[in-house]
């Protein structure tokens, strides 16, 4: 079920209504059943994967609590990791590995299974693995109530595309649900509306620009490809952060607080900072469960660089079974390592600017430079193969001049069905997004809005709803991160 579907618009109010009217002791059951229904709307048979993950990690948690021997505990943990990663490998990476091996040997060594990837598998396996590792580290108590644990794995707002929650944060909230709170519910609804705005008005409209250009990159001009790549940068941001906002908002309506997943990532001044603001739940997961165990930054420079490479290699491959994601991950690793190497230079630049009282200039340069680097990386993320990505880079450097004539550019855009109305809508929507991101870094807009007069508040609500109705794409593509 998609958050921007009519089906969800019916499902969610029903679940909320029942949730608030049911006694505390039955709420877990409602959430569990509705979460499974939410998931099974896609492919009912794949709910068995969720059942399997739940059963394994619930059992592992209990077993870890009972075991005292470090060796036994390690063995139990390894069983959980092997099971989770095995499921992930089977569905997500087996065909990729088989294809790569077969093409390497030029014969069919292992057959491809052409399995359909269970939606959001990477998200819930990582959440589940995080739980077992935390139990192993004795950071959290094992969950002894299977209903609560099952709800922790399948909680529908964050089931298919995160945020990847920590057991220590989410489990206690699922043991005791909060009662109806008007302020919290409306806060959640506002966030959901904002998320829908990002997804339907910006991301889905940009998809109409990006998809046709990326479908035949070899016949596009440099400017068109550059436009599509920048467009994709905003598309994926609004698509994913929009999803996260809806997920966090929906959970908030139900009285559950989820972690922030995005904090204006395109306002970052370095790639390192970018990764503290982009897909925060995943980057902190890798930080806590991979990077720090590897030694983090408390090691030699060489070993640190190796750790970064490992983390981003895993992050890349987490996104998808394709060489393009791998290159995308390694590209970011190289940028972070390069950032540390050139740290002296950038510090000097900041120092210079401080002396000159022009601190804003390097910050702006840093933001633009980071944006350009991140955007270039999206080419690998979006292209179907490395070869196509390289073709895009090659073509991006050519044929700009003739397209700098506005009428000609407008003509080429109209050929792919992009009208001047789309340009107007997207410019206004991106302006609203940038204002929202800039202001949102300083204070909570929702809190500020709640303190305003009725006229101001309702004007804002009406504007947001009308923007959705007038500018939203109601038959847009599904969320990009569903495929991961």
């Amino acid at each position, binding site marked *: 079920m998609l958050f921007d579907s009519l089906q969800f618009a019916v499902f969610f109010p029903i679940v909320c209504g029942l949730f608030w009217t049911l006694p505390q002791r039955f709420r877990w059951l409602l959430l569990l059943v509705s979460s499974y229904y939410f998931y099974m709307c896609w492919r009912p048979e794949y709910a068995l994967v969720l059942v399997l993950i739940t059963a394994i990690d619930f059992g592992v948690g209990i077993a870890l609590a009972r075991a005292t021997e470090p060796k036994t505990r390690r063995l139990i943990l390894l069983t959980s990791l092997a099971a989770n990663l095995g499921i992930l490998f089977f569905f997500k990476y087996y065909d990729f590995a088989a294809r790569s091996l077969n093409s390497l040997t030029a014969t069919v060594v292992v057959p491809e299974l052409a399995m359909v990837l269970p939606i959001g598998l990477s998200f819930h396996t990582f959440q589940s693995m995080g739980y077992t590792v935390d139990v192993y580290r004795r950071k959290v108590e094992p969950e002894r109530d299977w209903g609560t644990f099952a709800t922790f794995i399948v909680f529908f707002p964050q089931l298919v595309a995160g945020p990847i929650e920590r057991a220590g944060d989410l489990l206690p909230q699922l043991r005791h649900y909060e009662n109806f709170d008007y302020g919290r519910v409306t806060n959640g609804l506002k966030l959901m509306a904002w998320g829908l705005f990002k997804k339907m008005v910006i991301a889905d409209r940009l998809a109409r620009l990006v998809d046709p250009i990326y479908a035949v990159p070899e016949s596009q001009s440099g400017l068109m490809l550059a436009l599509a790549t920048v467009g994709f940068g905003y598309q994926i941001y609004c698509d994913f952060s929009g999803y996260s906002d809806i997920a966090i908002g929906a959970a908030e309506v139900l009285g559950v607080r989820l972690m922030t997943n995005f904090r204006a990532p395109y306002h970052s001044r370095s790639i390192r900072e970018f990764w503290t603001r982009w897909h925060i739940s995943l980057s902190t997961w890798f930080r806590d469960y991979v990077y720090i165990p590897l030694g983090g930054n408390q090691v030699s420079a060489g070993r640190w660089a190796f750790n970064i490479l490992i983390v981003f290699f895993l992050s890349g491959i987490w996104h998808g079974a394709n060489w393009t994601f791998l290159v995308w991950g390694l590209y970011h690793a190289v940028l972070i390592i390069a950032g540390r190497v050139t740290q002296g230079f950038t510090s000097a630049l900041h120092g210079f600017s401080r002396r000159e009282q022009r601190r804003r200039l390097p910050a702006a340069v840093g933001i633009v430079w980071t944006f350009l680097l991140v955007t270039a990386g999206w080419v690998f993320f979006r292209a179907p193969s490395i070869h196509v990505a390289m073709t895009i880079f090659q073509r991006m450097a050519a044929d700009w001049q003739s397209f700098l004539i506005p009428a000609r550019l407008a003509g080429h855009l109209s050929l792919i069905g992009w009208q001047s109305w789309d340009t107007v809508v997207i410019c206004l929507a991106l302006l609203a997004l940038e204002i929202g991101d800039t202001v949102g870094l300083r204070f909570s807009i929702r809190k500020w809005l709640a303190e305003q007069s009725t006229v101001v508040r309702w004007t804002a609500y009406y504007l947001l709803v009308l923007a959705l109705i007038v500018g939203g794409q*109601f038959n847009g593509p599904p969320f990009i991160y569903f495929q991961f």
Partner: protein
Amino acid sequence: MRRLFIKFASFVPIVLLVAAVNRSVDPARFYGTHFLDPSRDQYEGAVIDNLLAGRSQVLVGPYNERLVLEAVFRSKRPIDTLVLGSSVAKPINGDSFPGENLYNAAIYGGELEEAAAVYQLAWENGRRPKRVVLEFHGRELGGRNWDIVPELVPVMLRVRKRLGLPSDDSESIRELFTQRADRTMPDNQSTAAQFVVDQSWLHPYDKLFSPRYFQFSLRSLGNAWFDAPTVTVGSGGVAPQPEDERQVLCPDGSVLWSRKWLSHTAEQIRQLVQSDAMKPVLWNRPPLSPSHCRLFDAFITDLERSGIKVILVLVPPFPAAFDRMHDAYARAHKPCPLDECESYVRAFAKKHSIQIDGSLDPRKAGVAEDEFVDYIHMRRDALARLIARNNAAQQGPN
């Protein structure tokens, strides 16, 4: 909780605004009004008024035939014999079936799909004629020769459903429609077409609250305000035809050909047939299509089950056109689709004891060159003679 409901209720004006705009602008014309293009309805309205009052109507351009047919079927006019088919059948009139109330519901550019859809419209309006005359000119059972008639697409989907035809056949209709929309319709019509095809069980009332339809309404409104107005005499906003090309729609639905068509001589038509302009129409015809044959079988069987007498009228093309077509297929060592179509129809008719008038072979049908106004359309009196001649000759089922 109550506060929350009040808050939600405060958004009702937006929902009402959407419904009001969709209802009043209605660019796909679901609700019978058309805020942006009133002249279209006025034209069809005039045609309907004249037909129902028993007056003839000079056709100044194409019109929405579905609107007119629906009005006729909804009226109290008795219909014993219903004529279905393409423009070839348009001249068939009451003189061929004396003593019966005939209505000619043939459609310009219509093929088998349109014929079945028109009958469906009649059926949905409670019409059960005693007799259905179905005209054939040889292209009905192969792939389509002409573009699908967009106004009838929803009805085509309904008739397929009623006849229990496979859903693949309905998909092919959707595809044909989309192809036509992409190729020939301006942007607005193409978008309207998508809404027409998208039929949920609430159709068309689901469109009233549809944000997508709201966006389309706003865009249409914007176009109307900022674009230059178009001439909208006939359906699709085309300019009026010259006077000598105008046809006359008779009260029984039959048509009197235009002066220009009637002035065509056999020699002129022969030259036309020899020119390349006829190539796409007469040659490269596809063989029998399974989906069309399925529709034909199911449609005729349904009529028979309803106790309706079916008469199939096979109208031949201009003799020189027939010869040229035959030669072309013979040279390519392929069977001529006209022969295939006639064989199929005759075999079916024999099995079901259905009367057949005429033949797709002009010699067998006994028609002369001067009985045509162009390479496929016969003169009114000639077509009446064809039906009468065969009626007399056959004296019963084929």
